[in-house]
């Protein structure tokens, strides 16, 4: 019996170079990764970042150039896909058009040579789970996108894989359906207790669903952490920029005292932040400040930075401002568009001289 918290997938020095093309394309530079049993783990990154390659290596559709993939302690890197107890939900679902829904779901169980009665029982159970029992005898081409998606999920879960791989399964659905399926996926994952490895380029999806996320770019894993860690403490510029919105500001460290750092942004413009990278005076780094963490304050407040409002965008839930500080430094900030006792919600006008406060804990020094 697998226990939650065991290492389900352990990847060591995994590398993939496509030799078929001239010079060879490096799809995966090097990946080291551990996915725990029962975890909802997400590979997040823009297209071409190597996340799909990594998933295909785990599934067995590609073989690594170098490195190992351990599934519960056993190296599976060179096993063919039909010998790996992992199953895949494909981006385009890849349902067999010549088989009915029930036959599709039964396909993997037949591959495992399960007894007929057992196959029938599991198929019924799986179709119940995705609420599509009534469609058992239909052909996939008669189903809607959302229904196909659920059948693909039921088909991949039916053989009870050790790990379920999901390759952007929601990307073909429209927004409302996508949101509903997110909750459904999460529910099914919790209900079955199966380890999910989920590939997506949608950061909101990743943040909402995952226990942990690996952010990838250019064939490398940039950061692994919980959604909070990834968002609140991005380890580098790529992660800070890719997850959510942020202001990236070049700074020079001018003073360090008791874990707080004074950073010079421009002549006479000093920001304070926590010293999370052990910087010393004279270091030149990049600072990430999330727009929602910056506040407008009364100009007389201590530590307030004077600024001028140069742009204002109404985006429904929020109002987004662009302000210019000293020396042409610009910052973006967001205010929630809440009802404030009848006060005009966007009282600031373009060109107004205002002041902002950047709280110490709200900024983040990025690694090089």
């Amino acid at each position, binding site marked *: 019996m697998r226990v939650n918290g065991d290492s389900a997938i352990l990847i060591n020095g995994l590398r993939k170079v496509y030799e078929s093309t001239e010079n060879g394309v490096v799809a995966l530079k090097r990946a080291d990764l551990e996915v725990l049993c029962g975890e909802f783990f997400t590979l997040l990154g823009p297209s071409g970042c190597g996340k799909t390659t990594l998933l295909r290596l785990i*599934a*067995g*559709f590609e073989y690594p150039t170098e490195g190992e993939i351990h599934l519960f302690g056993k190296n599976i890197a060179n096993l*063919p*896909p*039909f010998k790996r107890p*992992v*199953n*895949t939900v*494909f981006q*385009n679902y*890849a*349902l*067999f*058009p*010549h088989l009915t829904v029930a036959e599709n779901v039964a*396909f*993997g169980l037949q*591959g*495992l040579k399960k007894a007929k009665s057992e196959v029938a029982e599991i198929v019924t159970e799986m179709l119940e789970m995705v609420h599509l029992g009534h469609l058992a005898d239909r*052909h996939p*081409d*008669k189903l809607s996108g959302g229904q196909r998606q659920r059948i693909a999920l039921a*088909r*991949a879960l039916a*053989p009870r894989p050790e790990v379920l791989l999901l390759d952007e399964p929601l990307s073909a659905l429209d927004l409302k359906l996508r949101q509903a399926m997110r909750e459904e996926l999460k529910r099914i994952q919790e209900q079955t207790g199966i380890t999910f490895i989920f590939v997506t380029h949608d950061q909101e999806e990743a943040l909402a669903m995952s226990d942990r996320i690996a952010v990838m770019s250019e064939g490398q894993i940039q950061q692994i952490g919980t959604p909070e860690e990834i968002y609140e403490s991005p380890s580098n510029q790529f992660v800070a920029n890719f997850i959510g919105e942020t202001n990236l500001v070049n700074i020079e460290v001018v003073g360090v005292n008791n874990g707080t750092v004074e950073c010079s942004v421009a002549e006479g413009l000093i920001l304070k932040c926590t010293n999370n990278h052990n910087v010393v005076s004279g270091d030149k780094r990049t600072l990430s400040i999330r727009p929602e963490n910056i506040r407008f304050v009364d100009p007389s407040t201590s530590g307030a930075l004077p600024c001028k409002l140069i742009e204002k965008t109404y985006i429904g839930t929020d109002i987004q401002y662009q302000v210019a500080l000293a020396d042409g430094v610009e910052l973006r900030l967001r205010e929630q568009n809440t009802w404030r006792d009848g006060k005009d919600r966007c009282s600031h006008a373009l060109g107004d001289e205002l002041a902002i406060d950047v709280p110490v804990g709200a900024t983040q020094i990025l690694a090089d």
Partner: protein
Amino acid sequence: MNRTMINADAIAPGMSLKRRQQLLSIGYAMPVLVTILIFLMVPIMFIIAFSVMKAGVYGGVEWEFSLEAYIQLLFERQLDESLVFNDAYIGIILRSIKLALMTTVFTLLFAFPVAVWLAMQPKKKRNLFIFLLTIPFWVNILIRTFSWLLILRDTGLVNNVLISLGVISEPIRLLYNDAAVLVGLVYTYAPFMVLPIYSTLEKMDRNLLEAAQDLYHNKIKTLFKVVLPLAKPGIFAGCILTFVPSLGALVAPELLGGGKQMMLGNLIYRQFSEARNWPFGASLSLVLLVMVMLVLMIAVMRADRNELKGGS
């Protein structure tokens, strides 16, 4: 579409739109209909007419009604005008069907792996291979079939190689039998089987193969449970394209069968040439036509059923 309606209005004012458009679509189809009428229906009418006339002494027909040509299919007229059952022609028809069926089966066995292999090639290479597959069509069928004579005859390539290898001491007879005809037919019609199967497989989603393997089916099982069922429409089309022409084949049985192993095509050919019995040739042609129509009707019915089922 707009233009269609304007034209329709000019042609028949006052008619309902639907009716006018129907009329117009028939109008657009006229060139095709006229072509079919002149080049297909009229010759068939001639054949039907010839088949119920008397044979002319020097070929051609005499304009006099007679069912002799059909009687001849089953009976032989003795000198005293009495009829005796004769199975020679029925035998040739059955042989033709048997050979055509065998050709279809062997062509399928040969062509299916080729088509699968072609469909699995990288896209850029595929067109080159398809091009190579069609090269034999550049050469006249007579010459292509004749080349098999050189390969199969007593002093031909196969016998020479086998003798020089010491497998056999005397040449074996490879020509002038059903097997030789079969080789010629399979060779001639293989591309007609490969191409439709290839075209169905080419459209197949490659992810389906990965999905099958992901779901614990090895490559062989994937071939039988996914590739073969999905290739069915192509296999079916290929079988029709092979069976129908090989039923009426002329060149291969003539050259490789030595004229003794006759098929329906040779028999018909002979009636219009040496035998100078046009009505009998015409009636045999109609027998062939009816058989082909039956096969095609089964094909159409099958296609309709598939459409109703909603399958691929």
